């Protein structure tokens, strides 16, 4: 063993001498640092620019323009809105690449698109055409029951769904730059989104308590029981929040729904079917943007809620009326 200690000590000496040389080179102006593209810092940094904003599902250039004009921070291009995916049945796949490219050439805000869970080739195609964010999404039909995509291998940031903290941390460990609590998409019913956000909050509060008491063993037990890395669990406990940006999704249909999710600690919201399955999409999109940014200002949320009419909201689906096999949230845990 002593050999190993001596080896490690030499390794440490070597590391420090390299660092010293680097510092000397930097001071003398010899070091040339090239541009570093797509490093983790700019992936996480990009996502932090979304905070306080709304990303809207769209299926055409026309809808993308409405979303941009209404003040969306980004759009998600799909072949069908989640509500229509439910109605259509069959296998749901990534959207038509020509439609995605056309949206990219029409609007100036970031363009995201979904690939199937585990379908790294669909993700590669999306990266190749240049989408800004890839959603490995349970709204599409999963192709791998066991594993998600290795997201560290991509230059493009990924967002993944999660119903609770362990799912979220597993996705972050796989390289997700952003989390969205799943909810139950395409239902117009925000109940599941609330449930998932509260589950995440509950575990974070518990871990934070362990951390403040210095009970690292409890943090270790939590990570072991939930198959998540200890370091990531400890980081979450120290921060008292998810280590990446978290948007709420699944069933948000009104300005008040969006404000509610912000109160529960979401950094922003995804709105899917809620806007373009309503009969007042322009006003509703604008109102949801206002309510998300000003969730803590009741006057502004009232103003936002008055911009839309409940008579024109999308028809909701009660989750209890769905059969277990119709639930999307249980895909890819």
């Amino acid at each position: 063993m002593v050999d190993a200690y001596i080896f490690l000590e030499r390794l440490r000496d070597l590391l420090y001498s390299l660092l010293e040389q680097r510092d000397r080179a930097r001071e003398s102006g010899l070091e040339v640092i090239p541009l570093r593209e797509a490093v983790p810092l700019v992936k996480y940094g990009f996502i932090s620019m979304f905070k306080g904003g709304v990303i809207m599902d769209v299926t055409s250039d026309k809808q993308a323009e409405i979303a941009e004009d209404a003040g969306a921070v980004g759009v998600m291009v799909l072949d069908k809105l989640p509500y229509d995916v439910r109605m259509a049945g069959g296998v749901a796949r990534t959207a038509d690449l020509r439609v995605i490219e056309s949206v990219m050439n029409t609007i100036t805000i970031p363009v995201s698109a979904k690939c199937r869970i585990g379908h790294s080739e669909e993700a590669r195609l999306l990266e190749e055409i240049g989408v800004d964010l890839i959603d490995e999404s349970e709204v599409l039909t999963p192709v791998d029951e066991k594993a998600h995509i290795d997201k560290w291998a991509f230059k493009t940031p990924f967002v993944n769904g999660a119903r609770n903290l362990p799912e979220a941390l597993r996705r972050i460990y796989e390289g997700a730059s952003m989390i969205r609590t799943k909810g139950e998409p395409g239902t117009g019913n925000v109940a599941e989104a609330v449930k998932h956000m509260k589950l995440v909050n509950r575990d974070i509060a518990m871990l934070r308590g362990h951390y403040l008491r210095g009970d690292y063993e409890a943090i270790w037990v939590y990570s072991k029981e939930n198959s998540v890395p200890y370091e990531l669990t400890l980081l979450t406990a120290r921060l008292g929040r998810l280590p990446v940006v978290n948007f709420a999704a699944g069933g948000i249909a009104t300005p008040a729904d969006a404000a509610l999710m912000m109160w529960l600690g979401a950094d922003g919201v995804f709105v899917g079917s809620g806007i373009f399955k309503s009969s007042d999409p322009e006003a509703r999109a604008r109102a949801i943007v206002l309510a998300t940014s000003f969730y803590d200002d009741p006057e502004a949320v009232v103003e936002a809620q008055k911009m839309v009419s409940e008579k024109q909201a999308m028809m909701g689906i009660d989750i209890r009326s769905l059969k277990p096999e119709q639930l999307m949230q249980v895909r890819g845990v």
Partner: protein
Amino acid sequence: MRVGVLALQGDFLEHAEILRELGVEAVYVKKPGDLAGIDALIIPGGESTTIGNLISARNLGEPIAELARSGVPIMGTCAGAILLARKIVDRVVGETKQYRLGLMDIGVVRNAFGRQRNSFTARISLEGVGEVSAAFIRAPAIVEAWGGARILGYIDHPVAGRVGVAAQQGSMLALSFHPEIAGDRRIYSYFLDLARR
């Protein structure tokens, strides 16, 4: 000293964190009344169209312009720099009709270095500030400055060529990158010095 951070959308939290680390009081600005009594204002990164829409919807444009006229320093980073510019062009779709504050005599090109996969970090040198680390995220380039505005630093980019990344006009600063993401304090010291003058 109190520094306001426009907190409608974007990474206002990161700016506030750095200000607090530097021992400066940071206040979030969401409505005109929040501008009272601040010594400087930061307009953060985010989506310039979103922030512009919300500035316009909440009638914040004129109070911010009034602040600028009275000489209170304003710094815009990325989306914030776009909002300060008088001329805005997008690399893909061309001239944009988006809302702007238009307080600085500069022209910017949005998404000048490409899409998100082309976002990068680099070290750049700025006149009066020195060398700083910078994160360029779907960043704009400052391609012209006239009137009272002056470009403070450039980057040599393999695709975009040599373009401006920072500009100053009186006590206003426009940066096409994110010091709040790369964690660089020097640019803040420079900005806070403008406020102390």
